[in-house]
């Protein structure tokens, strides 16, 4: 009888609990706490946190290859490159390129902020990460979750969970990370610069932009095609005005569904074996460096542009070049308002902000082209 109970006990998960698994549960619970109590990127951190917990339950086998439920989500959703591009479809349907088209020169600030991606790539490689891992860590600086996941899946799947959590965590912390850097890099007078009134954008321009971007970007960097094609298709849904049902579905139901199937398997890739390593701490530190460097290079480029421009740009707009939409734009607006209460920069900041999404997708495409 005693032996029977002993054998029965060994078939339960309780018998197989290890300290490493407990640490992973704690990490999962912390992410769920941050999502619920602090409202830090709850749409992603909550399912990721839950995914970490259930993937680290002994004997559950949810990530067992070919059999586990979460493994199937991961394999067919993420490995097969379906979910990140579908998320981009939804994001495209949500994006208004009007502020960017109204102030085209602000597009370069979206490029400038990608400097942080490459600086971090360089530092990560110098620290001993191989080129593929360094690229995956660098792209965190783009502040674009789906792009980070897309690149990590292809270049360094072993870092997928860590880089995704780092990207979404730092995106949630944009209002804390960016303002001190922005203030450090600008004078009060610079923060008070008021932007020239934007021209009115016509509907035709808004329809032509996604079409032209598709041609230009995909011809230039074919590896960025899955992301850019879906992003611009979503935007064409929105701007054409003739497929309202598709537009509505892309930016609501579809986006919500794929968000569920993105978060849980990503959390599930974080097992104790992969995650509890000293290098994970370095990845988080480098992710923070990437965010800070992207903010700095964006602001710096705006200041350089001002040297050659008659109509001055408020250099704070450079910080919106990281593609945390619309969080980075809101932060720029808030910091500008602290310097001058009547300086409304939100709509201007949306320009580099959406340009940052394109910039990060191009940067990811270049990494893929050169490293895959």
């Amino acid at each position, binding site marked *: 009888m005693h032996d029977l109970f002993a054998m029965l006990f060994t078939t339960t998960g309780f018998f197989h609990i290890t300290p490493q698994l407990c640490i992973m549960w704690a990490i999962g619970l912390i992410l769920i706490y941050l999502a619920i109590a602090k409202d830090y990127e709850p749409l992603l951190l909550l399912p990721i946190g839950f995914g970490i917990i259930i993937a680290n339950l002994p004997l559950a086998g949810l990530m067992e290859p070919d059999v586990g439920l979460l493994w199937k989500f991961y394999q067919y959703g993420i490995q097969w490159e379906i979910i990140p591009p579908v998320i981009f479809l939804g994001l495209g349907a949500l994006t208004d390129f009007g502020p*960017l*088209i109204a102030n*085209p*020169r602000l*597009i*370069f600030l*979206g*490029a400038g902020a*990608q*400097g942080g*991606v*490459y600086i971090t*790539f*360089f530092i990560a*490689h*110098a620290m001993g990460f191989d*080129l593929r891992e*360094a*690229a995956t860590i660098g792209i965190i600086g783009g502040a674009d979750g789906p792009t980070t996941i897309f690149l990590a899946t292809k270049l360094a799947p072993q870092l997928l969970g860590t880089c995704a959590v780092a990207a979404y965590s730092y995106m949630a912390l944009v209002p804390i990370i960016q303002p001190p850097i922005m203030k450090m890099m600008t004078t009060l007078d610079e923060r008070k610069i008021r932007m020239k009134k934007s*021209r009115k954008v*016509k509907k*035709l*321009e808004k329809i*032509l*932009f996604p079409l*032209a*971007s598709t041609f*230009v*970007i995909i011809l*230039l*960097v074919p590896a960025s095609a899955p992301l850019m094609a879906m992003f611009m298709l979503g935007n064409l849904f929105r701007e054409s005005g003739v497929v309202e049902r598709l537009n509505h579905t892309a930016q609501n139901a579809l986006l919500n569904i794929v968000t569920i199937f993105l978060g849980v398997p990503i959390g599930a890739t974080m097992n104790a074996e992969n995650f509890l390593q000293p290098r994970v701490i370095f990845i988080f530190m480098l992710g923070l460096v990437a965010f800070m460097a992207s903010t700095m290079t964006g602001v710096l480029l705006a200041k350089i542009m001002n040297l050659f421009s008659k109509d001055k740009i408020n250099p704070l707009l450079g910080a919106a070049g990281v593609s945390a939409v619309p969080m980075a734009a809101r932060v720029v607006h808030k910091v500008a308002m602290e310097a001058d209460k009547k300086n409304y920069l939100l709509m201007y900041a949306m320009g580099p902000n959406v*340009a940052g999404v*394109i*910039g990060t997708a*191009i*940067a990811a495409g*270049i*990494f893929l082209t*050169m*490293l895959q």
Partner: protein
Amino acid sequence: MSNSITIFVAGITGVFLGMGLLWLFIKITSIIVDRIDQDKVADQPEQGKAGNPTEEKKEEKK
């Protein structure tokens, strides 16, 4: 290390080149669209004078 420098330079160049092309496209489109709009505005008063039925009726009464 030389590989990483190559990727660094190629990456930054590629991002700026892509954005530069998009900037060029936006500028060209805005110039064309503004020109079309200006032409429309310029045409409207002439059309109004030529084809305004109320003015024609007034002239007939006189």
